[in-house]
């Protein structure tokens, strides 16, 4: 006789063990370790919610305080490796195997631990990819999540940083898993229900509010003339050229410069309403001047940003907000939106090779991927046309009946030819390959593959890779914008001039841009305080960005 309810029975046993720590669903912070030791079994797949921003830090501290004799060999399946505790548990023997997406803040340590064999690595994913596997072969047994508040029935209010929570809960709660939420407060009535209570088994009132990192705040004071020049080229040579309305931006200073040039430079070019109207984007403070100037129709967000809550509440026509007035973000939906409904992704990178593969990996850090590879890839499942998509598809060539040709998503790499300390961004061979060898990875961690990249923008010019017809042309197009790096100086000058004549390489002067006009006075805001003034005082930057 088959037992079709083994998982369900196991879940009930876990809940039964855990109930002694709880008053109904509510667990005091002091009993977190007891709770986790009661729920967890060796070898469990566990999602310890570590998002891009929001961190279930109280539960993370609890997990790392568990007795490794009772809780061990866990398989962690979570998007972010952000807090020290996320790695401590591997050193302690509590966790053993890891599948994840992003490890920016812990990039150095995770590389050392991978190298030292302390972590058994499944794979480094993109966000959507990991979320997808939650529903196929990496379904969590236990989810440890974070929210702002909950009622005694477990109805959960995530606040503006909803992020990954609905996806994690969906996969866990509906497949016999146990969901534990930490909240900043237990309340009689939550402002809105982001996660219905019947999906949440236990609620822990955390000892302190969960930690959120202001990841998307770029101080306009640090935007350089070179970044402004590149932003001018991107606006004139790509946004205007292709009429890009639907887009996603990376988080670097280059894209911040574009955002800050919309109400000034782009406005003077007469582009308002013709570009940059619909966004998949975190609420970047540097977009405030463009929003206030009427450029932006709407923005869907992966997560929120520290200090933007009041501003977002006051702009419901632009942002997705709940009945309570605050932002509703959702990483999985926004990633999907960025993948399928945006015509352009533009972001920075650290290294580009001669084919156009790009990577943010250095030999000593494993930063993971996050969402950029989803944004920065051409979705083969796309079927709806747009002028931008069709034009790019046309440039990419192809034969046969035009009605059978695909369009192309524009994937733009914005990169200064030299980084800090005169480190060249263009290389013959990616450091990612060294890292893969060193860590014995099957796949080198490539952020954007060469066949997805359509344009490279440097201070020397724009290379349109869609128009390249041979691998050699492609290499010379890349060398032709690689400036004075070894790669750039290794160019075939005659070939580069031929590519320029064909519009494959475009210099600032070809675009009617005088590099000497690239001046900080073009920025709609030159400081964080300017952003506050643009927002009418609604934007409240965190202390590290204030001098007042």
């Amino acid at each position, binding site marked *: 006789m088959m037992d079709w309810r083994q998982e369900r029975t196991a879940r009930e046993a876990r809940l039964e063990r855990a109930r002694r720590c709880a008053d109904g669903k509510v667990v005091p912070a002091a009993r977190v370790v007891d709770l986790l030791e009661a729920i967890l079994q060796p070898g469990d797949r566990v999602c310890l919610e570590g998002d891009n921003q929001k961190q279930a830090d109280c539960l993370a501290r609890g997990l790392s305080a568990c007795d490794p004799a009772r809780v061990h060999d866990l398989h962690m399946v979570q998007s972010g490796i952000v807090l020290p505790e996320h790695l401590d548990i591997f050193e302690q023997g509590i966790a053993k195997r890891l599948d994840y997406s992003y490890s920016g803040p812990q990039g150095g340590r995770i590389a050392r631990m991978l190298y030292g064999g302390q972590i058994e690595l499944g794979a480094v994913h993109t966000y959507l990819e990991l979320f997808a596997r939650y529903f196929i072969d990496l379904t969590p047994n236990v989810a440890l999540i974070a929210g702002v508040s909950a009622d005694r029935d477990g109805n959960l209010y995530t606040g503006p940083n909803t992020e990954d929570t609905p996806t994690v809960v969906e996969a866990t709660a509906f497949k016999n898993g146990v969901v534990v939420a930490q909240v900043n407060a237990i309340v009689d009535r939550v402002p809105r229900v982001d996660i219905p209570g019947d999906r949440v088994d236990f609620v822990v009132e955390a000892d302190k509010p969960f930690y959120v990192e202001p990841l998307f705040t770029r101080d306009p004071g640090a935007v350089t*003339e*070179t970044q402004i020049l590149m932003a001018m080229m991107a606006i004139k040579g790509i946004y205007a050229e292709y009429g890009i309305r639907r887009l996603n931006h990376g988080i670097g200073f280059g894209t911040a410069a574009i955002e800050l040039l919309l109400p000034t430079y782009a406005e003077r070019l007469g582009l308002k309403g013709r570009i940059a109207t619909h966004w998949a984007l975190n609420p970047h403070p540097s977009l405030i001047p463009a929003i206030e100037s009427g450029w932006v129709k709407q923005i869907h967000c992966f997560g929120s940003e520290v200090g933007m809550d009041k501003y977002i509440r006051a702009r419901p026509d632009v942002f997705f907000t709940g009945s309570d007035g605050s932002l509703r973000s959702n990483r999985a939906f926004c990633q999907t939106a960025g993948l399928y409904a945006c015509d352009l992704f533009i972001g920075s990178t650290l290294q580009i090779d001669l084919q156009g593969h790009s990577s943010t990996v250095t030999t000593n850090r494993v930063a993971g991927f996050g969402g950029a590879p989803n944004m920065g890839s051409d979705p083969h499942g796309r079927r709806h046309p747009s002028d931008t998509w069709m034009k790019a598809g046309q440039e990419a060539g192809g034969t046969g009946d035009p009605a059978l040709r695909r369009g192309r998503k524009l994937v733009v790499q914005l990169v*200064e*030819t*030299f980084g800090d300390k*005169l480190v060249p961004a263009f290389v013959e061979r990616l450091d990612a390959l060294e890292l893969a060898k060193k860590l014995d990875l099957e796949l080198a961690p490539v952020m954007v593959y060469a066949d997805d990249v359509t344009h490279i923008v440097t*201070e*020397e010019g724009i290379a349109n890779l869609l128009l390249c017809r041979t691998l050699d042309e492609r290499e010379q197009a890349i060398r032709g914008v690689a*400036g*004075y790096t070894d790669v750039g*100086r290794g160019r075939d000058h005659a070939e580069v001039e031929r590519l320029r004549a064909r519009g494959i390489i475009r210099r600032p002067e070809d675009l009617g841009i005088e*590099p*000497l006009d690239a001046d900080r006075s073009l920025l709609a805001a030159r400081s964080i305080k300017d952003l506050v003034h643009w927002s009418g005082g609604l934007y409240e930057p965190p202390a590290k960005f204030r001098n007042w």
Partner: protein
Amino acid sequence: METLRFRHATTRPLPGTRPSAITGVVASGNLEVLLERNLPPDACHVEIDTAINGYAEVWAAVVADFVARRQPGGLTITINDGGARPDTVSLRLAQGARLMELP
């Protein structure tokens, strides 16, 4: 510290009559460029004091491109460099040439 000197021939003098100009600031990642109109119209000399050793080839390429593009005949260009990236150097040289061309 390293001192580099380059001598180039140009096909024409840089337009304008200003005797000298200065642009930029000596700081980390930045440089100052002093331009003086004191050579025969078909010559351009460039002298660089740089804080970072070992980039002579890059400097040679940057200076050669600038001379080819702007034809700064008649100029002595003296640079104090605080470790600027090549694109910053190009930008300052272009800024300097434009200042010298102002009426």
